[in-house]
């Protein structure tokens, strides 16, 4: 275990360097936007990674809430299975799907929901789901910050403006604000109910993720169409570079989450030890 982290760290660093080389040197130059289009290789993978982390935060928060109540836990399991089945079937049955949305991408989403839910259920205890939720929210906010910074840096030369209050951009900003408030709540609230309140906030906050993602289908927006499972099109060489960058950022996010998770566990162990020590101290010392 001690050796695994440095080895994975080195591999991730190599992958990130290779992905950067692919983005700057190998990817073809876009004809209308020029080199500034290459921002896309950092912007889009960061957005996907943030969405995935917020989704894991959502699942972990739901489990933290339902595991406190066994009947609710059982119902939640069946609800998740039903959502998975309905999403898989719905992708092929609902006609027409919004333009550019493929049945296979809808079905994959359904399977991913069920898979992530039961993986977390199997491998994380009650307290661990709370730590996982905190970890993924924090790292997700970092990736979402990258999205909100790189987006305007692309928009300025391409659209001629840094920012516009359209649905995609505004909902992303709202998503960032929700998760920042989640972290502020966890950092400064001293109540014993903080994890429960935070989990409830996370469940509501996660509702913004599909709004951000699907806003380009359901609203008129200035933001470009998605390149995978959406109406946008992309040169296969560009798609290859995009996927390599996403893989690199996913590995990086995994390592950062792992470190943060271990840090939080250690922090809680120390707090527990300190609390026990305070309880075991002789009363004369307390006075």
């Amino acid at each position, binding site marked *: 275990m001690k050796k695994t982290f440095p080895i994975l760290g080195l591999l991730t660093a190599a992958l990130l360097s290779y992905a*950067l080389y692919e983005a700057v040197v190998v990817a073809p130059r876009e004809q209308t936007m020029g*080199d*500034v289009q*290459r*921002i896309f290789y*950092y*912007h889009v993978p*960061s957005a996907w990674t943030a969405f995935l982390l917020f989704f894991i935060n959502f699942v972990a928060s739901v489990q933290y809430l339902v595991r406190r109540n066994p009947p609710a836990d059982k119902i939640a399991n069946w609800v998740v299975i039903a959502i998975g089945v309905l999403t898989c079937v719905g992708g092929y049955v609902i006609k027409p799907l919004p333009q550019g949305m493929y049945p296979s991408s809808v079905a994959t989403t359904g399977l991913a929901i069920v898979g992530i839910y039961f993986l977390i259920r199997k491998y994380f205890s009650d307290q661990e789901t709370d730590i996982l939720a905190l970890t993924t929210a924090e*790292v997700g906010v*970092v990736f979402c*910050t*990258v999205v909100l*910074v*790189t987006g305007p*840096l*692309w928009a*300025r*030369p391409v659209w001629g403006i840094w920012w516009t209050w359209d649905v995609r951009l505004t909902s992303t900003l709202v998503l960032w604000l929700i998760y920042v408030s989640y972290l502020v709540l966890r950092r400064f609230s001293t109540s014993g109910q903080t994890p429960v309140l935070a989990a409830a906030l996370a469940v509501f906050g996660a509702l913004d993720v599909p709004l951000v993602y699907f806003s380009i289908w359901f609203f008129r927006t200035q933001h470009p169409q998605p390149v995978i499972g959406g109406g946008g099109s992309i040169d296969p060489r560009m798609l290859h570079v995009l996927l390599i960058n996403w893989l690199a950022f996913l590995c*990086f996010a995994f390592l*950062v989450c792992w*470190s*943060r998770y271990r*840090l939080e566990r*250690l*922090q809680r162990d*120390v707090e527990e*030890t*300190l609390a026990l*020590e305070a309880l075991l101290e002789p009363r004369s010392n307390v006075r």
Partner: protein
Amino acid sequence: MNFLYAAYAATWAIHIAYLITLVRRYSRLKQEVDELNKKKN
């Protein structure tokens, strides 16, 4: 090209800033653990 460099630099600046906060939190916690161990001994 300047915007491209700015975007890539900003991305890594954000990630590195976060990693620095993690390292600082780790070292603070390690200090606490060391103090606890000293007390025990």
